[in-house]
């Protein structure tokens, strides 16, 4: 991690969990084999799967003032890593995913995928939205097929992959169903299958389980972990739920409230498979929550401020309670 800080001098101080050694931010020994090997750092500078450097986004509000949404975000994600981004609502964490997906241009800074800058959307980075992003006019099978069809993959291969990925999410029986006939949990599994079918390197998940009930969410956590270890994809997972982040992530990145900045990063060294109810998960989450609480307070203060858009001077670090 220390080399990264030198490479990006204006990165904000990283608080490292004292339980873990400081140099352990990358993918570590897990219960699964790491499919992509990392080159030795001494030989060549490491090429990250996803690299964000000084990424900024500002936009004009309706009243005409410029609002800084994301402020010099620096983040490196290793191949096969599962990174969770947490932050209070309004910190721009979903926006960050949209930028990585190429759905929206950044104001300044760089987004690199395998060292190459992002130019618009690409099927190497597939997004899984919170809900309602499956196409209701298509059957489950056709939804999974969609990305492959756009890529021009031949019909026979598409059909084989539809079966493969529906099987992976245990929904093979529902190939001919329409989306509205399925439950919320099934829909998100289809969304995962649809995303995986284009064989992306990176999955961008935008609070995918936020609208689900607790039992379904637990189940999908297990499934996602299994799919991740089976396919070896890199995952960037946005959530406001710190426990969920600790449950799933190799690393948890905490963003500040408006403008969104990387406040701290927490490596999660707990053995997998983990459970949401594990005391170790709860303890790790507690620590992150303590830091998050300041940001939540700031977001609440802004909300209670009768809709007046808060203007936070760039350069002022978060943490002031109002």
């Amino acid at each position, binding site marked *: 991690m220390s080399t990264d800080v030198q490479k990006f001098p204006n990165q904000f101080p990283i608080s490292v969990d004292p339980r873990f050694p400081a140099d352990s931010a990358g993918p570590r020994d897990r219960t699964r084999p790491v499919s992509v090997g990392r080159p030795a750092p001494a030989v060549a500078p490491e090429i990250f799967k996803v690299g964000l450097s000084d990424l900024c986004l500002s936009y004009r509000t309706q009243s005409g003032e410029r609002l800084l949404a994301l402020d010099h975000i620096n983040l490196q994600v290793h191949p096969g890593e599962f990174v969770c981004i947490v932050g209070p609502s309004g910190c721009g964490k979903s926006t960050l995913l*949209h930028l990585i*997906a190429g*759905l929206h241009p950044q104001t300044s800074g760089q987004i690199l995928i395998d060292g190459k800058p992002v130019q618009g*959307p*690409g*099927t190497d*980075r*597939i*997004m899984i*939205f919170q809900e*309602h*992003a*499956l*196409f*209701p*006019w*298509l059957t489950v099978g056709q939804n999974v097929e*969609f*990305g492959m*069809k*756009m*890529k021009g993959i031949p019909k026979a291969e598409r059909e084989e992959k539809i079966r493969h990925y529906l099987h992976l999410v245990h929904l093979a029986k529902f190939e001919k169903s*329409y*989306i*509205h*006939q399925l439950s919320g949990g099934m829909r998100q599994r289809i969304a995962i299958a*649809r995303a995986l079918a*284009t064989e992306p390197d990176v999955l961008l998940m935008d609070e995918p389980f936020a609208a689900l009930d607790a039992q379904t969410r637990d189940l999908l956590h297990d499934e996602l972990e299994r799919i991740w270890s089976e396919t070896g994809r890199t995952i960037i997972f946005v959530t406001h739920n710190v426990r969920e982040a600790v449950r799933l992530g190799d690393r948890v990145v905490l963003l500040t409230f408006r403008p969104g900045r990387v406040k701290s990063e927490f490596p999660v060294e707990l053995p997998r498979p983990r459970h949401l109810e594990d005391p170790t998960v709860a303890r790790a989450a507690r620590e992150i929550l303590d830091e998050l609480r300041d940001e939540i307070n700031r977001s609440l203060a802004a909300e209670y401020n009768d809709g007046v858009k808060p203007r936070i001077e760039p350069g002022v670090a978060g943490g002031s309670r109002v």
Partner: protein
Amino acid sequence: MKRAARYIIFYSALFGLWTLLAELKIWPPYLFPTPWGVGEALYAGFQDHTYWIAIRVSMQRVLIGYGISVVLGMILGLGVASNKFLEETMGGLLVSLQSLPSICWWPLALLWFGLNQNAILFVVIMGSLLSVTLAMEDGRKQMPKIFGQAGRNLGAKGFKLFWYVLLPASLPFIVSGLKQGWAFAWRSLITAEMLYLSLGLGQVLMMGRDLNDMSAVIAVMILIIAIGYVVDGVVFKGMERHLQNKWGLTPAT
């Protein structure tokens, strides 16, 4: 079937009233024909193929005109919905143009295209184009944004994005506009056909007037209503039901 009973009662009452008024002979029969007079006119019209030909010619025209309207209207509507400049300028113009009855284009159409089928088609297109455009614009705006994002994210762009994502995603929101466009196209067609010797239903209706044959006039009116009703009830209702089943929307009652 209570509904069927209500239908039977209502239509027999209407039919009875019509027969009664005709039988009372308040007006001479050539001004107020009896139901069977109209029935005979219908039979005769189909017997000598006049109505078959008229229906074929009219349907052909309305399909061509409406088809052009749908294609143009979708392109225009999409343009207006996705371009702020177009929306601010053309959006208002389109709404104000909608208050203009399409037959007002007839004199211009005659000068531009001459006294032929193209003039009629032009009036039909002007009649339905605005409805389709406004419906498409509205549909594109009402359509959840996430579909477009998901489509682009999965690698769809340009025409593919329109054809495979934006169009099907906005269909439930534009189907009522398409239906309205059809109704306007059909009305514009009949009006235009009445103004010029054209073989269509409109002309057959005017022929009845020229021959002072009100039975024939009413017979053609019934045909026009019936065709409009069948297209609405079969084609558009079917489309709506199909979409509702796919999307899982509750049918509007």
